[in-house]
């Protein structure tokens, strides 16, 4: 293993995060605060509790998931697309690094950034509502696995994007709607039966549900299904990346 190479990529990416620390942290803090104002106070005054949990507290796992998913994807996709855009990718391709090591460096950094932001959101949420974590290890398991999985997904976008617009299309048009419709701010039991069945087709629902279970022991679907879903997405991403790398990862032509 080229550990120095992995470390170089990791530190290089984290350095970018440090340079833009204010934007990186201010954005999720402000967004989270706005969600609490809009959903927690305005709408929350009409929905007092879901499954016995105060509405403000209920939406915290969903908000964290929303941020983790979008941040993991955008961090990893940008991190890999940027050297392609500036042509500095030549150095990574010419270095004695395996595809696994390249992915480990980029995805590790993207997932780390998401985890830091996730922790900041939990702290921010504590200023507005009581946040209880019944199963901290399970919470960390979901948090880390989701960060890695969606960083891998972002890495794929970074490999395939043909422009900066391409980096935004999937997160905006697919991920954000899936998160909003995946029970971030409500329980699917509140929906009509037809829409409940439709919601079950949304993979993000399982992530949010499992993650919420680790906080309050309430969920829309079973914990096992949630775990299997995230593992399936993770394996899918790994297989896809391995396949793409074997074909020259679209940048070696």
């Amino acid at each position, binding site marked *: 293993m080229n550990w120095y190479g992995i470390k170089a990529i990791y530190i290089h990416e984290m350095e970018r995060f440090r340079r833009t620390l204010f934007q990186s942290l201010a954005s999720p803090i402000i967004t989270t605060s706005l969600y609490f104002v809009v959903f927690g106070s305005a709408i929350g005054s009409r929905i007092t509790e879901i499954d016995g949990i105060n509405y403000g507290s209920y939406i915290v796992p969903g908000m964290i998931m929303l941020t983790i998913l979008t941040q993991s994807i955008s961090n990893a996709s940008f991190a890999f697309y940027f050297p392609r855009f500036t*042509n500095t990718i030549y150095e990574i391709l010419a270095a004695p690094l395996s595809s696994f090591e390249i992915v480990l460096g980029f995805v590790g950094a993207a997932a780390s950034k998401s985890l830091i932001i996730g922790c900041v959101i939990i702290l921010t949420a504590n200023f507005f509502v009581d946040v209880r974590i019944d199963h901290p290890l399970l919470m960390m398991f979901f948090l880390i696995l989701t960060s890695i999985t969606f960083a891998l997904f972002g890495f794929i976008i970074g490999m395939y994007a043909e422009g900066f617009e391409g980096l935004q299309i999937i997160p905006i048009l697919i991920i954000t709607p899936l998160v909003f419709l995946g029970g971030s701010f409500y329980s699917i039991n509140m929906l009509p039966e037809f829409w409940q069945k439709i919601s079950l087709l949304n993979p993000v629902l399982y992530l949010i549900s499992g993650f919420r279970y680790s906080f309050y022991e309430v969920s829309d679907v079973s914990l096992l299904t949630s775990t299997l879903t995230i593992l399936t997405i993770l394996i899918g991403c790994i297989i896809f990346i391995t396949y793409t790398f074997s074909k020259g990862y679209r940048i070696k032509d």
Partner: protein
Amino acid sequence: MKNILEINNVTKFYKNSVKALENVNLNIKEGEIFALLGPNGAGKSTLINSICGIVNFNTGTIKINNMDIIKNYRTTRKITGIVPQELNLESFETVWNNVNYSRGLFGKKPDHNYIEKLLKQLSLWDKKDNKIKELSGGMKRRVLIAKALSHQPKLLFLDEPTASVDVELRKDMWDVVKKLNEDGVTIILTTHYIEEAEELSDRVAVINDGKIILVDEKDKLIKKLGEKTIKIELFEPIEKINGNLSKYNFTLDQTNKIISHTYNLNSNTTDITELLNDVKKDGYEIKDINTEQSSLEEIFIKLIKENNNELVRN
């Protein structure tokens, strides 16, 4: 001297079926400076990028230090460095971070003393904390060289190292290249500037349309294909070349005082002593004699023209 690089029957097609390299065979000796010459789109960069693992080639084998570059990519890449043609650098990073990052990528543990020495050698030390965007084009070129040397490679590829740099900096770069070679680094450079190849290289290859059309030692190449012109300035102007001189194909300049004869160094068709005797026999008094040898550039243009004509015929 042993071969540090062996390229056998390498062919490369791009996805749009454009043939970039066709059955390229080339051996590079350890410790030499080798120049790869060719017009735009000839395949110079594709060849270098194939060796360095930046593009995949379709068929053939490439070996560095007798090791296949695909099977033993870790070992072979560790001793290889590349300076790309474009100024591909991360603008918002400092020189110091950029160079250390490169060293890390190539699997070498941090060595701040070596990087300091390297930056000093390339006159970059006082710019180490500057962001790349604050540097001039020439300085950026030096940073690229520093990055390529950060892991102490044995084989260095310079893809158009002095493209769009001023004359003074070009000379500086040449000094850097010579120094690196003295330190034991084998250097392969592609260039448009024939004078660069003439100044630096031990051997030269000419590539055109993805094919290597010639490989030879620079001096031999100039000798083999080079033409020489002898210019004889006379004291008195003459109206016409006749007498003994008519057999030499002399041309007369506008002042009617300088007669010129071009001959091939390799052909032995011109006996200079006899020529000068004939000038004397015809009663001309010589004021001055000057000879000019064809440059590598003229040879290069001639070769490419011949090759293109051959391609058209086929």
